[in-house]
């Protein structure tokens, strides 16, 4: 491409738009369905249960240690499907580009999306591009949708948790939100934390192979672990009991939380999942997770109980309890 930046003309629908798609987007998402450049992708029906999800990505800054907006867009959508127990079949990606966005930044995002899509073994089969004037999009926004197929015998959902279930987390919590916060530079903190952003469908597959009886799967994105646990406790009308000492959190993440006064259980993750597994199957599922690259530090962090329905209790290191409420608003750094 000769132009260095996106201009409003790239969004006008004419030759420049066409060239943008042909020369910039297609090479990253090359597949037969997309190459047709029809108005819709046509996918043969494969099962009578389809998972369908949509999401929008507005993260700032666009690039951060461990990922970028493109990677989260692919992983986030794939993960939403995987949390339904679905095998992702196709994604759409719609781009809102800000006038003035550097072509090389867009290329970098697209390359990252290609890499993430390959990791997830999924195709981007539909897309769209619009250009908005300066100041209206902070560089780039991405909206996605995803379709997946739920295999026979798999039945996961937030309302399926039952007393006795073990609760498993796939790895250390908080890496993503802290990595992005540090990349923003607002609090002048320096360190090596990287986002955990990753596609979890492969991990979910090996978990379902170990046991099809898994009750619930959720990825703790915005709102973190606490919000997911609370939502499941309420949807399933059960109580949740977590042992704080079992929750894996990196020392650096803890240090940033200490410095800012953050509660790590509300931090967003983009490559972790929480699983509610019937007691008898928990050991097999945990072993399967720990054998997978994205689950090496998986740990059982608690269980479901019949008491205190709708409430999440955290057992603290000194042996006391506290309630874990869902996130009620933005976590602000505090000095008190």
């Amino acid at each position, binding site marked *: 491409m000769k132009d260095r930046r996106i201009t409003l003309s790239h969004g006008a629908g004419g030759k420049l738009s066409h060239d943008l798609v042909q020369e910039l987007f297609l090479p990253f998402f090359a597949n037969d369905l997309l190459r047709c450049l029809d108005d819709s992708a046509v996918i043969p029906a494969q099962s009578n249960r389809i998972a369908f999800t949509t999401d929008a990505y507005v993260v700032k800054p666009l690039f951060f240690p461990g990922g970028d907006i493109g990677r989260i867009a692919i992983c986030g959508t794939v993960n939403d499907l995987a949390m339904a127990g679905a095998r992702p079949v196709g994604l759409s990606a719609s781009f809102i580009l800000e006038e003035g966005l550097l072509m090389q930044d867009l290329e970098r995002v697209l390359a990252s999306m290609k890499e993430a899509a390959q990791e997830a073994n999924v195709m981007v089969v539909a897309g769209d591009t619009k250009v908005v004037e300066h100041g209206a999009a902070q560089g780039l926004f991405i909206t996605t949708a995803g379709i997946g197929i739920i295999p026979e015998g798999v039945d996961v959902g937030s309302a399926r948790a039952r007393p006795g279930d073990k609760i498993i987390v796939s790895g250390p919590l908080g890496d993503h939100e802290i990595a992005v916060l540090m990349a923003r530079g607002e609090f*002048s903190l320096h360190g090596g934390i990287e986002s955990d952003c990753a596609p979890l469908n492969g991990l979910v597959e090996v978990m379902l192979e170990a046991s099809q009886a898994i009750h619930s799967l959720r990825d703790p994105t915005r709102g973190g672990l606490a919000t997911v646990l609370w939502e499941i406790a309420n949807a399933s009308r059960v109580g949740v009991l977590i042992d704080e000492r079992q929750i894996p959190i990196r*020392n650096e993440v803890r240090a940033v939380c200490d410095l800012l006064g953050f509660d790590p259980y509300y931090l967003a993750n983009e490559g972790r999942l929480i699983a509610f597994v019937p007691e008898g199957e928990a050991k097999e599922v945990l072993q399967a997770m720990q054998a997978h690259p994205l689950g090496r530090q998986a740990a059982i962090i608690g269980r479901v109980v019949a008491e205190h329905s709708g409430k999440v209790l955290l057992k603290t290191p000194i042996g006391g309890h506290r309630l874990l409420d869902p996130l009620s608003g933005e976590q602000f750094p505090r000095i008190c």
Partner: protein
Amino acid sequence: MCLGIPGKIVSLAPTGLAAVDFSGVRREVSLMLCPEARVGDYVLVHVGFAIQRLDPEEALETLKLFDEFLEGSGESS
């Protein structure tokens, strides 16, 4: 209004600033309230300022007292 975190001074910069390490995370901290602090010292940091040098001997003494308390051989004070 009292969050204070212990950190270790890893280097001194000009104009009374120091690079302080908190379990692998670093921030610049002002030594205006603690000018005697040196590289290797632990300091208590509040709103970007070191407000006190922490005494490693005092910390060790407390460790010992706690151990004794657990064994039931003395009172912690």
